[in-house]
């Protein structure tokens, strides 16, 4: 291995430390115009009328777009259930409604951002308010107000699982633990708020340059709404300032494309730029879903799980986004990594008039895992067993039947991952069984606790979707290969995928990394890579560049110059789940993860200080070890924000935390004293050079490990978070 397994410097490092990397807001073109969006600002209403006359009369205003200007007024990643612009006059029914505060009602294009903003204030919209549906349980009820009147219920998606004989399972149990868990909304706070630039290129295509996670899908959605052919639209990804799932859905892209299209019809051929403020970003894009999980687990006295019953309600917010897929992940995660003979799960994602729930690192995994792992920690306590020992008695092995009644793919080494984490952290093996080591003395005024949790997360798209990714490898030179170009559309959102792709291409071709250059991020230059999500890109891109490199090398051997080959990797097939039993083979690869946490809590103030985190992951093979560790460190700190401080408040459908001063993410002073990534490398049979995906794994089980540590410190279980001082004090009965 000459190119992979090395901590190669990022290919974009130089541009980024020099301030040269151009993010969407940094793009400018001479003569550009500026766009501002008029958001609904109310959770549920019918737009009766939009009067743009005053706004249009403002000097410097060039164009005002409303619903009637959108050729096909619908979009959505999973289903097109959201209007591009809400209001009367479009052909699709019910697009005259706003369903959350961030719905877009009009877009103004003007000579400056200030003029566009002033014009937005002059647009007069007449609304007829509708009752906002805010509680997902109410939304589920028969007769609830239909948020999408063209559907027959507010349920976006439901799943059902029946395995074994639940009644018997609970009869066999000596101990039964019940729990009700609520996980909060989380906002991505990628540092770069949404922005973009649109223009026509020389070939007459509408170009949209904006941050995203899947250029070809964005191209498709823009073309669909604009009524254009696919090849009339071109999507370019500039440097992207973080994503974490938050750029998986459309934000500014369609309205930008629409603006240049309508301007050209008016004879104005000028680029259009938009930059969202932080507040617009927080209101305008989806969030991690809030989940409500009620569950009951049974085990025998000697520590064998007998039954689990789980009821899941996900608050999907106003539109589908990826609620259906996120729910599938939670559905699988809600029994975590355990062999349970009798299981019943009912899960639904439902619409409310709140900010939509959607993709965020872990994608339903953290929510399902929080309930499952909390149940395991509580059962261990009830049974008087060590939490690691109790888990080891119940983990899935190669060939064991999962909740979906099939076995796990690949190597299944959950036991090894758990033991490694235990050993690296606070446990030791005494006389063949795991026990917590002697504790350090705690500082004056604090109580100390340690906690453990683990989990799994799929890699790649699930449940019958034919996973695929395209790559082209081009070999230049005469006698020897002097230059290699790899074309791959993977979005570089900060995770380091371009560097990993260059390394994997160099390895596959057999040249030093310095000879490889990547062309990416442009639908006119690359073919579809699929999205950067589901921890899939290293796995999918690696396999596709490997295939393309092999084919190109063959042509090189046959004296073709340059030798160019394009290859589509198809991942192993998966299947849909049976609608009655949930049985199926939803995934072709999983990552396993175990995490141990030590914290200190001040029982007088409710303040928690997480002091040590050991985050253990089998990554198959680390293509770039430093970047793997960087993903673990970043993922753990993001997960600490989720469990400790990040409190997203919506009242009556209105967002109350639309600033960085009210929605608090971790700062450099909030990181643990010790954050130890523990990286294991057992090659996956299908992964490129054995590599698995890993970027979501550090998020999966951290929350239940923290609440377990807090329980260890205080004796109290916390089934809701974030664990703000106020919540902690309330839990301790101090307020």
């Amino acid at each position, binding site marked *: 291995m000459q190119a992979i397994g090395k901590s190669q410097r990022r290919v974009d*490092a130089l541009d980024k*430390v020099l301030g040269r990397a*151009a993010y969407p807001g940094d793009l400018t073109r001479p003569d550009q115009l500026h766009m501002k969006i008029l958001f609904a600002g109310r959770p549920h209403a019918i737009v009766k009328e939009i009067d743009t006359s005053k706004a249009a009369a403002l000097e410097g205003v060039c164009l005002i777009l409303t619903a009637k200007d959108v050729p096909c007024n619908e979009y959505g990643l999973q289903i097109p259930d959201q209007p591009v612009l809400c209001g009367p006059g479009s052909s699709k029914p019910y697009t005259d409604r706003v369903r959350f505060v961030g719905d877009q009602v009009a877009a103004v294009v003007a000579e400056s951002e200030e003029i566009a903003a002033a014009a937005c204030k002059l647009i007069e919209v007449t609304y007829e308010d509708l009752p906002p549906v805010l509680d997902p349980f109410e939304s589920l009820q028969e007769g609830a107000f239909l948020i999408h009147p063209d559907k027959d219920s507010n349920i976006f998606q439901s799943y059902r699982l029946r395995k074994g004989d639940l009644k018997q399972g609970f009869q066999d149990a000596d101990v039964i633990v019940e729990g009700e868990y609520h996980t909060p909304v989380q906002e991505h706070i990628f*540092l770069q708020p949404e922005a973009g630039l649109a223009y026509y290129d020389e070939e007459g295509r509408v170009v949209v340059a904006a941050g995203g996670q899947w250029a070809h899908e964005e191209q498709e959605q823009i073309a669909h709404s604009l009524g254009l052919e696919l090849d009339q639209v071109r999507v370019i990804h500039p440097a992207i300032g973080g994503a974490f799932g938050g750029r998986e859905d459309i934000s500014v892209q369609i309205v930008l494309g629409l603006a240049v299209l309508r301007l050209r019809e008016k004879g104005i051929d000028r680029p259009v730029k938009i930059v969202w403020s932080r507040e617009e970003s927080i209101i305008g894009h989806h969030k991690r879903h809030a989940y409500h999980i009620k569950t009951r687990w049974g085990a025998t006295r000697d520590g064998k799980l007998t039954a689990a019953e789980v009821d899941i309600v996900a608050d999907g917010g106003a539109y589908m986004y990826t609620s259906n897929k996120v729910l599938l992940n939670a559905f699988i995660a809600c029994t975590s990594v355990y062999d349970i003979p009798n299981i019943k799960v009912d899960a639904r994602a439902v619409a409310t008039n709140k900010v939509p729930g959607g993709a965020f690192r872990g994608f339903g995994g953290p929510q399902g895992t929080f309930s499952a792992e909390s149940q395991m920690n509580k059962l261990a306590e009830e049974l008087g067993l060590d939490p690691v020992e109790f888990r080891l008695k119940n983990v899935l092995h190669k060939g064991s039947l999962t909740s979906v009644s099939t076995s796990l793919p690949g190597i299944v080494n959950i036991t090894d991952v758990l033991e490694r984490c235990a050993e690296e952290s606070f446990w030791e093996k005494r006389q063949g069984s795991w026990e917590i080591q002697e504790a350090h003395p705690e500082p004056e005024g604090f109580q100390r606790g340690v906690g453990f949790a683990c989990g799994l997360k799929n890699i790649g798209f699930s449940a019958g979707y034919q996973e695929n990714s395209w790559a082209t490898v081009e070999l230049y030179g005469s006698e020897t290969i002097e230059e290699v170009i790899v074309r791959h559309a993977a979005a570089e959102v900060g995770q380091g995928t371009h560097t990993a792709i260059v390394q994997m291409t160099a390895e596959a071709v057999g040249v030093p990394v310095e000879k490889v250059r990547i062309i990416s991020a442009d639908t006119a230059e690359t073919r579809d890579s699929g999205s950067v999500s589901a921890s899939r890109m290293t796995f999918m891109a690696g396999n596709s560049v490997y295939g393309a490199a092999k084919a190109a090398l063959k042509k090189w051997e046959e004296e073709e110059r340059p030798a160019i080959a394009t290859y589509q990797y198809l991942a192993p097939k998966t299947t849909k789940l049976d609608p009655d039993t949930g049985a199926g083979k939803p995934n072709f690869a999983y990552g396993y993860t175990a995490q141990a946490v030590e914290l200190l809590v001040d029982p007088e103030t409710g303040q928690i200080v997480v002091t040590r985190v050991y985050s253990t992951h089998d990554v198959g093979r680390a293509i770039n070890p430093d970047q793997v560790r960087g993903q673990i*460190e*970043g993922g753990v700190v993001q997960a600490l924000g989720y469990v400790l401080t990040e409190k997203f408040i919506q009242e009556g459908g209105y967002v109350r935390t639309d600033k960085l001063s009210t929605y608090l*993410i971790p700062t450099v002073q909030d990181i643990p004293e010790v954050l130890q990534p523990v990286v294991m490398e057992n090659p996956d049979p299908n992964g490129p050079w054995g590599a698995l995906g890993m970027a979501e794994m550090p998020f999966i089980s951290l929350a239940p490990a923290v609440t377990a540590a807090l329980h260890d410190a205080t004796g109290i279980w916390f089934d809701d978070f974030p664990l703000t001082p106020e919540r902690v004090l309330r839990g301790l009965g101090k307020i």
Partner: protein
Amino acid sequence: MAHHMISLLVNGQKEKLLVPSNLTLLHVLRDMLGLTGTKNGCEAGECGACTVLLDGEPVNSCMVLAPELDGREVITVEGLAKDGQLTPLQEAFAELSAVQCGYCTPGMLMSATALLRRKPHPTQQDVQEALVGNLCRCTGYQRIIDAVMVASRTGGAE
């Protein structure tokens, strides 16, 4: 809107500008001078992405009004490397993977540059204090701290 004529030094270059009185330094840099290395993450003094050095002190450029700039000196991320030669701090950020998406990086570099000029051999705690106003959502911060510590041993800010 009232306008002011100001003269200032930006990365060693003399600039004479007519600026509206409510314009911030962030927009002077990005929109008037085309120095887009300085980032906008909130325009409210809450993220640090817009940090620059004003007379050697780190400031959130989104919180400084242009008329205050007359006669002063500004250094941005574009002003760090000399003749394409990275500063030890930039070198350490690149080498130690202290950069992921990179959007916080210019601000981090400016805050850390100010620290190392003031205190060439800081403790980890000093670094944490100096960077507390600079948010990063990607890295988990440890690599950024490490990069500053390494730079303090390999030559500091310059």
